[in-house]
């Protein structure tokens, strides 16, 4: 289930743009019921650089399957590592890293 998140992080003029594509079924309660599966979806995502939070979101069941996210932040340089972690309803965690280019 917990597959790698594809991350691209690019710095330009002091602003880092991150695109992330997580692998997750994101089964909402209604979908899970019709498929006779257990609902499970990503409930929170945190991204950090040098232990500093640069992105934080609490999410619900209505993100699309394999959710895509894009966000921007200031103050990171090329070569730094972006750490991207999601947690789902069942408590599964997945952390992936990407170098800022």
């Amino acid at each position, binding site marked *: 289930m917990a597959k790698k998140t594809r991350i691209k992080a690019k710095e330009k003029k002091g*602003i880092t743009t991150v695109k992330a594509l997580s692998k997750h079924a*994101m089964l*909402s*309660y*209604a*979908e899970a019921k*019709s*498929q006779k599966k257990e609902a499970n979806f990503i*409930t*929170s995502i*945190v991204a*950090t650089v040098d*232990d*500093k*939070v*640069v*992105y*934080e*979101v*609490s*999410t*619900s*069941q*209505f*993100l*699309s*399957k394999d*959710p*895509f*996210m*894009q*966000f*921007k*932040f*200031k*103050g*990171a340089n090329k070569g730094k590592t972006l750490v991207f*972690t999601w947690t789902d309803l069942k*408590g599964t965690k997945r952390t992936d890293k990407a170098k800022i280019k």
Partner: protein
Amino acid sequence: MGLGAAAVMLPSTLSAVNFRETNKSAFEGPKSHTVDDAMKELYGTSKTTVGKVKLKAPDIAENGAVVPLQVSSDLAGKTVAIFQDANPESLVAVYTVPADGIIDYKLRIKMAKTGTVTAVVQDGTTLFSASKMVKVTAGGCGG
């Protein structure tokens, strides 16, 4: 045992606010069904000032399973919340904007039917919002 260990570990993450824990009623339960109620549960009010927030969404979404959204604003907001009125519960996501964060978020959401997407940026005590109607021709919530 396993569950208890996980619960103990959670506070050690860097996450400042998990809105699913602090404002659970905005995500699930009887008060989460309408945008108004969910906003009240989250912010204590559903009064918003329209403007200063840009919300990009398609006019017509052929596939309700993937509706791309973009929220951006020049405000120095603390949180950004996204609501819609097409699904059983209205709150989609709450962002905490970090010190170096820029309010320019893209995400993809599911919509069961045609509805209005509302993005709210909290700046101090004021809520700024933008709304857009998205026409969904094929539902995406498996309903």
